[in-house]
């Protein structure tokens, strides 16, 4: 006769398997624990050197923003129908001055570029806002 032994209760089975598993976890050797600690340290290092996705976008947006600013600056500077080195549109004058200030290569250019890099999200947003047409 090959009768199967009766099964233990569900709760005691679950409890026993859980206890056994946790005992086996506690019994992990020092070498494995050390490797796990090293793996954790590498992960923490990665977390502290990377930024959340929102901020990592800066790396992509920065060159695009700088290029857009340069193209706009060149357009305003060279593309004037009157051939003047000034913007003829009245409210474009002040925008041009701002861009000139930011993009100036003579006075405080490092500061200006730093500012541009730091606030690239803002400039991206401002560009979109300005291009979206007249005020509602």
């Amino acid at each position, binding site marked *: 006769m090959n009768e199967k032994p009766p099964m233990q209760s569900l709760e005691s089975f679950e409890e026993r398997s859980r206890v056994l598993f946790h005992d086996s976890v506690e019994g992990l050797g020092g070498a494995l624990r050390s490797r796990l600690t090293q793996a954790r340290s590498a992960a923490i290092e990665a977390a502290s050197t990377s930024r959340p996705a929102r901020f990592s976008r800066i790396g992509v947006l920065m060159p695009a923003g700088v290029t857009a600013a340069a193209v706009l600056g060149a357009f305003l500077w060279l593309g004037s129908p009157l051939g003047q080195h000034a913007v003829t549109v009245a409210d474009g004058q002040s925008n041009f001055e701002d861009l000139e200030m930011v993009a100036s290569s003579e006075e405080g250019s490092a500061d200006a570029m730093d500012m541009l890099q730091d606030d690239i999200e803002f400039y991206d*947003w401002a560009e979109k806002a300005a291009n979206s047409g007249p005020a509602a």
Partner: protein
Amino acid sequence: MPRFDTLNSAWMVWDGPAPAPEEAVLEYTRELEKFLAEIERRAFRMAQVALRDPDDAMDAVQDAMLKLARNYASRPSAEWRPLFYRILENGIRDLQRRRSVRKRFMAWLPGPKEDPDNEAQDPLENVADASPAIPEVLMQGQAMQQLEVSLRALPARQQEAFMLRNFEGLNVAETATAMGCSEGSVKTHYSRAVHTLREDLGEVW
């Protein structure tokens, strides 16, 4: 949408979120380290049960830690556990798939057959059957080995559900997130796993 005469005036009304200060990054990396330290050994054992190989298990856990840290560290810490196990389970499945492809490829090659999984030397294959007549001699280690052998015989999804629910203590919703399936599926997989394991291991286990 407001129109701006100058960039300065645009700046005044900009209400975008402030950049994350360094302190915030430090805070969540500290919290993440605590979290990883708390789960790493259990995660490793679960990966080891699924993969049979400690080196593969270590790779899977390390990979999951890195992915969690790189991509999800800024998420609320309550989400980390199911996310971590989802990454880990995906990693385990990838390794298993790669193994089976390698196995099939090796089968086509001429010459002596290699044994990439080293299954022939797997000590768990040689675990002696426990005698129902002498349950008292079953040591904790042997009982765990028996459980591991039975767990490995389960379909992958049942194995995952059992380990996540029972070993890791995830609730049904968290397990569903970790497994990428519905809560109903989790219940079904878990119930089938428990039924099979209890039948397999019997009362004396």
